[in-house]
């Protein structure tokens, strides 16, 4: 058994996920190709050394269909020996790709893998792949399906997070992201996206709003109130949580993760392989886990995943220097910090998806890279990366610098 090491990590900046977004003209496979080519170029690894490319991608239909990972390998003109697989662990896909890559390396099944993710939400809209879970009446009924925004509002209701609490969190996220960009803290990972002629389309996260204020956010209408009250989703959630009288709808576009386009890639290999290829490891995958909670509340996974990963690794919260918790919704992170008793100053220190966006399939890989860069910048050792996931799942990975 070998340990799995991270040798490098790259990502595209995140473009606004709509037709006016800077990356809308870039096909998702183009974004994937950019990060695959960048990581091989930067590390100098020859593609024939790579066994497999594992990419997370949630909405695998239209141009993200037909195994976009292998399609991107072909498009990148890698060696014919490089395989490719696309996986869907919903919002945890990018980190799942890394965990699966690491597992494969640890098991001795593969030597070198590029793991990451891609999602062009402006071109392939979320939920456009259908699926049985929310739509098939028999399945939706058994699983008491509600949209995630309702789940997030349910968490806020149960935990008593006010609209001001969640808005305040969002303001902080924007502030931290603004400072991070000002201080060029993402510089190590960002690969600008260019068009076919090399003209830059985007070189920084497009969504960040440095001027966000509590008052400004206070003006926004709660996004899920109508859905919840008019279409029965609140009532359904209450049937699962009958001690709740009424769902307090606090989430809106300004305190939820942004819809964006982007891609990320991480190069993983065993120590010996790295040595043979003359690569210098940046960090080690220390532990990985997946968890799952009740599906209607859906977004408490970071708590259960963190509890489980720490137990498995024989570690404590205090052993972790920084945390990256995907900001799917403000309440998710607030709940995580409360339930796991985590010092807020260690969480998402450079902002998160509320400020920069959440390209579903890629985010897990992106925030792992962000955590690694931050560990190096501050000369710290250990980071925990976790995301909430549809269906009640949670995923976590602990990395440790070498």
């Amino acid at each position, binding site marked *: 058994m070998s340990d799995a090491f991270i040798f490098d990590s790259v990502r595209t900046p995140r473009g606004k996920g709509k037709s006016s977004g800077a990356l809308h003209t870039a096909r998702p496979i183009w974004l994937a190709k950019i990060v695959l080519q960048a990581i091989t170029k930067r590390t100098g690894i020859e593609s024939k050394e790579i066994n497999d490319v594992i990419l997370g991608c949630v909405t695998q239909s239209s141009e993200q269909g037909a195994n976009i990972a292998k399609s991107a390998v072909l498009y990148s003109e890698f060696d014919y020996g490089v395989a490719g697989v696309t996986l869907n662990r919903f919002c945890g896909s990018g980190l799942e790709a890394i965990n699966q890559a690491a597992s494969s390396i640890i098991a001795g099944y593969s030597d070198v893998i590029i793991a990451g993710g891609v999602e062009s939400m402006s071109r392939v*809209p979320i*939920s*456009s792949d*259908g699926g049985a879970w*929310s*739509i*098939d*009446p*028999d399945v*939706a*009924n058994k699983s*008491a*399906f*509600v949209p995630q925004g309702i789940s997030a509002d349910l968490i806020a209701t149960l935990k008593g997070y006010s609209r001001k609490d969640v808005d305040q969190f969002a303001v902080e996220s924007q502030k931290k992201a603004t400072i991070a960009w000002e201080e060029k803290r993402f510089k190590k990972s960002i690969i600008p996206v260019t068009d076919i002629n090399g003209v830059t389309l985007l070189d920084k996260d497009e969504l960040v709003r440095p001027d966000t204020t509590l008052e400004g956010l206070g003006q926004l209408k709660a996004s899920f109130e109508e859905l919840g009250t008019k*279409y*029965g*989703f*609140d*009532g*359904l959630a*209450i*049937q699962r949580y*009958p*001690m*709740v*009288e*009424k769902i307090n709808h606090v989430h809106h576009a300004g305190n939820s993760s942004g819809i964006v386009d982007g891609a990320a890639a991480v190069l993983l290999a065993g120590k010996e392989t790295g040595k043979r290829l003359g690569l210098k490891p940046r960090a080690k995958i220390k532990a990985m886990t997946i968890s799952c909670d009740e599906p209607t509340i859906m977004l408490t996974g970071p708590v259960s995943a963190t509890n489980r990963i720490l137990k498995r690794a024989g570690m404590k919260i205090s052993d972790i220097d920084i945390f990256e918790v995907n900001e799917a919704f403000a309440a998710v992170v607030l709940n995580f910090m409360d339930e796991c008793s985590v010092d807020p100053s260690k969480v998402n220190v450079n902002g998160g998806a509320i400020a920069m966006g959440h390209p579903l399939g890629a985010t897990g890989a992106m925030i792992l890279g962000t955590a690694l860069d931050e560990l190096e910048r501050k000369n710290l050792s250990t980071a925990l990366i976790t995301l909430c996931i549809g269906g009640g799942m949670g995923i976590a990975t602990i990395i440790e610098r070498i």
Partner: protein
Amino acid sequence: MFNFKKDENQIGVLTMDMAGKSTNVITKDFAAEFSKQIEIIFKDAQLKGLVIASAKKDFLAGADLAMFYRVEKAEDCMPMLKKINDTFCFMEKQGKPVVAAINGTALGGGLELTLACHYRVCIDDPKIQLGLPEVTLGLLPGAGGTQRLPRLIGIQPAIEMMTLGNRIEPQKAHKLGVVHELVKNAEELMRQAKAWILKNSNVQQPWHDKKFKIPGGAVQSLTGYQVIAASNAMVYDKTFNNYPSPKAILSCIYEGLQVPFESGLDIEASYFTQVVLSPVSKNLIKTMFFGMQACNKGMARPKDIPPQPVKKVGILGAGLMGGGIAYATAKAGIEVVLKDLTVANAEKGKNYSVKLCDGQIEKGRLTTDKKEKLLSLIKTTDKIEDLKDCDLIIETVFEDSRVKAKVTQEAESVAVASLVMASNTSSIPITKLAGASKRPDRFIGLHFFSPVDKMPLVEIIVGQKTGPEALAKAIDYTLQIKKTPIVVNDGFGFFTTRVICDYVYEGFRMVKEGVVPALIENGAKMAGMPVGPLVIADEVNLDLVGHLIQQSIEHLGPNSVDQSAIEIIEVMVEQNKRLGRKVSAGFYEYPAQGKKFLWPQIGDYFKQSAEQPDVQEIKDRLLTIQVLTAIKLWEEKVLRTTVEGDVGSILGIGFPPYTGGVLSYVDFVGVKSFVEQCKRLADKHGARFKPSEFLMKKASNNERLTNADLI
């Protein structure tokens, strides 16, 4: 059963005309004969087309529910569905135009037959109802309705029509595209039906076209996703998953619209079979159809008494109940004299009718003429003499036997000898009130429910001395005003009030135990009750609940009410002056703007425990306590039949229909399981849940509590 004629243009007319029945109903024989007729008719090569018509007032009112009630296994059901589906498909695919000439109401299988026709012409009469109401009896359209309707009008309107079971008027049906053409009368109906046949040949249904697309978007489209996902949630939200058929209808649409039409029919047949075999549909058919029908036919009416139609009703007391009864009576075209202490008060009571009429006019359901006519039937007065020629007088005065005695004597002093005197008391024993009457054999209880205009039940209470004529008259009157009567024997609180009170007291007990009120109220709704016990307490108003508690102790003894109920009233009414809805403060707060919400400070008085019970426990307690009280009343012979107990519980108390009613609940759960449940609850929560000897015996003999046969 059917007449067939062909005209000079080679157009056939198949007329449905069931012998010895006022309406056409789909029975096994009807279906078999229809299939045979269609087969023969289309053998005729000369035939230009076919009109399907009805010789009755209605077109075709649906299927024989007794037939569905008796289906016991899938093998009984599937061939029946296959046969009718094959016939409809055959008819659709002959290339010859088939037109439905809809002269009257077409519901369920009746509307489904028309959907299998290529063209639907309908008389434009708002009295005609078109719809697929199967869901209301726990079923679903099983003759292709779930497949044809969404392919015809689109997924969203079809879901709405079928999951709500709405009956719509021809105009709306035309707008939705359910019917193609509206005509004025029967003559024009046949003319236009035939005209369409002459104009069209080589027809096919749109869904048999290879290029067919579902109007408004397919299942696998963004619209399809949104509509179906929201419908899934709405069904879950509204049914609390207690009713399988709305979900099954969604499944028929979701699954059936992704496959060719004929495969869709097979899917529908599977789901139909699933729901027809479900205990819920059996319960709904048994109680909501046959049980209610029996009550509405006057099952409790003494047989040898000639009809006793009421001509003029006197009402004493023009409060909410008096005003409501006046409205319901005048609406049925019966004269009313509404008396209160002052004419102004009586007018206030009459104003209730004005308000209701205006609301109806606003919705286009009533004309000003009809309003005036209704109001002209209500005479207001402060003089008892004005009631002298009333043949029925209903008193609705304050719940105090002395006050009631006084008005009874007043009324009897002026009234005709044929008068039936009724009390609208909700709890005081009729025998006791009859003590003040000169003619106790003509004294009876008529317990209306609030709001009278909406609540369909009247609980008729027979006192010890009440005679058969008074009972017959009470039933005839109830049927005249189009409400459903149940008849019960006397006793404090009769049937419905006793059951409701125990439901409310169980809620009180939970509050006292420290259960979070939201959990109590949500648990009640999840069990299928329309509102939680605390809402009811607030609506009755807590001071009145306190009054009822005192009365209960007086009539039934100190053990009839739990100490916790007394404590709750003490805290709410005495300490906090939270009297309920009428002062906008009870278990709920009633803000001027927005929805009511639970009083947040309740926890200061009754400490809420950190460990809250499972909601299933709440549901079990809230239903079981009602069932046990009803069984007690059945044993005490307050309830005269289980059918009336079941119907009364659903219509008067809001006991969940899916159970079949408060007594059928035992058979729904199974008498042995029910007894086990009672024992478990008794161990945990007290002796009030202990099953009686009677019940234990039923369980040990494994006997049903209610009759499984239809009435």
